[in-house]
């Protein structure tokens, strides 16, 4: 019985369904939203939101002076990085160039290497030899009546000694080659030593004659080639003395004495020839690279100030400069440019502005105490070598420079002052109403790397100078040149300063390409 009742109830309850009511789901949805936080906030939440909004929407924090410095540092960060990178790169390039140009002159010249391997004498025959040249030279040789009977094998030794000279000279003149060809044909009647010496002497003389004749500037020869061409005994590096040993010469002493002048020229003609071949410092075309450094004497002129009715203020200030130059020389003329860093530091005219008020923390006297400019100078000068000596050169130069202030550092005074001092202020009119902030004068305080404009940071100067240069070796020289730079565009900085500079530059120049 009891079991049947339970069963009845259970069945009835299991079959029971409540009719669907759409409004109930709305309540459920609202509950779900509230649980998730997305529904309409209750009155307490609305109140909280409103209160927070009212309090914080217009909330302001008092200004703190030091925070701008931090902001400025962050603004300067990209410029600081750029500046550091540029500084390091310039140093890096300068050191690299100095290293390269210093050791450039000690590098072995591949064209100066002499081929010492014996070759068949037939190789010396020159296609450029003309029959007339051959006959003429052969005639000269036969008149010497040389009676030696050297073999061809032995003659190849002499040929190898003169091969370097021939290789170096074969482009010089046809006369040289004719002599070589003649030697080839007469080798059977000459000893190796005589033939080689005679050949070399004639070759060299012919070449020098052609040079004296004057028209062609030949490819410059190395000293080694010149020496091998002369074949002067006892000359180091050639080892030709054994070829002149008496045991190897089939020649009687009288004949030897007679032809002596022809074998070894008593006049050191090769030196004269070298003087001709080597260009003087004022000749030729060449590219030159230099490093320059030196102190500057700056004459800073601050013009009359309309605003404060202050007289012009002039002063001398020391600075320094240094950088790289690149020039192109054409005989006595030279065009020079470069990139030269210049640091100019100087004090400022005492101009103060009074800020603040008696009621707001008192008066503050602000003024410019000094300026330091980091300037990149790009000169374009024309140089003329007035007095040219073998190792010395005196010159004058003139031109213009573009000067760009990369960075400017200005020092300010910031001093609290009393009322009595205010009344005695140098500023006209008592200056009580002058509240101009020096920092807010547009465009006069920042260099190019600090966000300043090119217009505000660039000025032109005219250059005039003289110099003396001392050459060392074939490529390098040191110089000293005082150069005066006259600024001829408007002044820079907050006080529109004009700066004329006398640079006492010292430096090193290196020739690129051929030796001088």
């Amino acid at each position: 019985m009891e079991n049947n009742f339970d069963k009845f109830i259970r069945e009835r309850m299991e079959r029971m369904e409540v009719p669907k009511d759409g409004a109930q789901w709305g309540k459920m949805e609202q509950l779900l939203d509230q649980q998730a936080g997305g529904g309409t906030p209750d009155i307490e939440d609305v109140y909280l939101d409103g209160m927070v909004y009212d309090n914080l929407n217009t909330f302001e924090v008092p200004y703190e002076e030091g925070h701008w410095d931090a902001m400025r540092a962050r603004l300067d960060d990209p410029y600081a990085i750029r500046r550091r990178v540029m500084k390091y790169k310039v140093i890096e390039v300068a050191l690299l160039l100095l290293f390269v140009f210093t050791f450039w002159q000690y590098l072995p010249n591949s064209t100066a290497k002499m081929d010492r391997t014996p070759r068949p004498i037939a190789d010396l025959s020159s296609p450029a030899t003309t029959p007339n040249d051959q006959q003429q030279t052969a005639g000269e040789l036969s008149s010497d009546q040389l009676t030696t009977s050297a073999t061809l094998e032995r003659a190849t030794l002499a040929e190898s000694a003169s091969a370097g000279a021939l290789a170096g000279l074969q482009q010089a003149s046809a006369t040289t080659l004719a002599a070589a060809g003649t030697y080839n044909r007469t080798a059977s009647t000459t000893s190796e030593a005589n033939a080689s010496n005679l050949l070399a002497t004639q070759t060299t003389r012919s070449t020098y004659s052609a040079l004296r004749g004057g028209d062609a500037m030949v490819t410059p020869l190395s000293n080694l080639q010149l020496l091998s061409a002369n074949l002067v005994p006892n000359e180091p590096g050639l080892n030709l003395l054994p070829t002149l040993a008496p045991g190897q010469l089939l020649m009687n002493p009288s004949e030897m004495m007679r032809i002596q002048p022809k074998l070894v020229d008593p006049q050191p003609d090769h030196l004269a020839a070298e003087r001709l071949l080597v260009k003087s410092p004022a000749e030729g075309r060449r590219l030159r690279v230099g490093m320059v450094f030196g102190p500057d004497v700056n004459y800073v002129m601050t013009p009359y100030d309309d605003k404060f009715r202050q007289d012009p203020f002039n002063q001398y200030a020391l600075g320094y400069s240094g950088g790289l130059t690149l020039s192109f020389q054409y005989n006595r003329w030279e065009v020079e440019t470069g990139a030269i860093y210049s640091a100019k530091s100087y004090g400022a005219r005492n101009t103060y502005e009074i800020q603040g008020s008696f009621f707001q923390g008192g008066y503050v006297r602000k003024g410019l105490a000094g300026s330091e400019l980091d300037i990149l100078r790009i000169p374009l000068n024309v140089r003329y070598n007035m007095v040219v000596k073998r190792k010395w050169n005196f010159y004058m130069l003139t031109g213009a420079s573009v000067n760009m202030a990369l960075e400017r550092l200005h020092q300010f005074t910031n001093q609290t002052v009393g009322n009595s001092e205010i009344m005695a202020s140098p500023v006209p009119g008592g200056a009580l109403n002058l509240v101009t902030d020096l920092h807010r004068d547009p465009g006069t305080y920042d260099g190019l790397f600090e966000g300043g404009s090119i217009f505000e940071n660039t000025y032109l100067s005219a250059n005039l100078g003289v110099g003396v240069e001392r050459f060392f070796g074939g490529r390098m020289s040191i110089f000293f040149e005082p150069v005066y730079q006259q600024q001829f565009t408007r002044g820079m900085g907050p006080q529109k300063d004009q700066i004329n500079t006398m640079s006492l530059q010292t430096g090193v120049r290196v020739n690129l390409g051929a030796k001088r």
Partner: protein
Amino acid sequence: MDIALQLQHEEKNLIEACVNKERWAQKQLYEEHYGKMMGVCLRYSNNQDDALDILHEGFLKVFNHISKYQPGTSISAWIRRIMVNTSIDYYRKSIRRRTEDIDQAYHVSAPNADAISQCSEKEILQAIQTLSPAYRTVFNLYVIEGYSHREIAEQLGITESTSRSNLVKARLKLKALLASNYFEYGK
């Protein structure tokens, strides 16, 4: 009228100078808007150092993109918008480093409304700064900036329901904090 025109002219000159990256103009703009913007940044950060970091990051964006500012609109609102966006970026960065104290808010009882009304803006700011970055950011964006949950979700890269949930939890915790301040200082 003349004064308004003059102010408008000065603002135009100032912005042009800022476009030319004149430092004096940048400083002037910074000084003029420092107070309000620092207030914004403080709401989104834990402390003053972080707020200053956000402020300077925001001003860097302002100075770098000031050429995009359209004259005639409110420069203050434009800068504020940049500051809020910078704060959101700050939140995104900070959320990678922190774990959220999600369960923290469940056990807070709702305080008395009278107690909350007595709090000063400084206390409210401190309470907001005590919130976790997620709660704080959602709360600021929703309550003060007036963003919808959808916009918040898009900005922060979360779902709308998360935004809603964080807002509820932020409110709960904020109420508790403000109430505790009230009782602590005997107001």
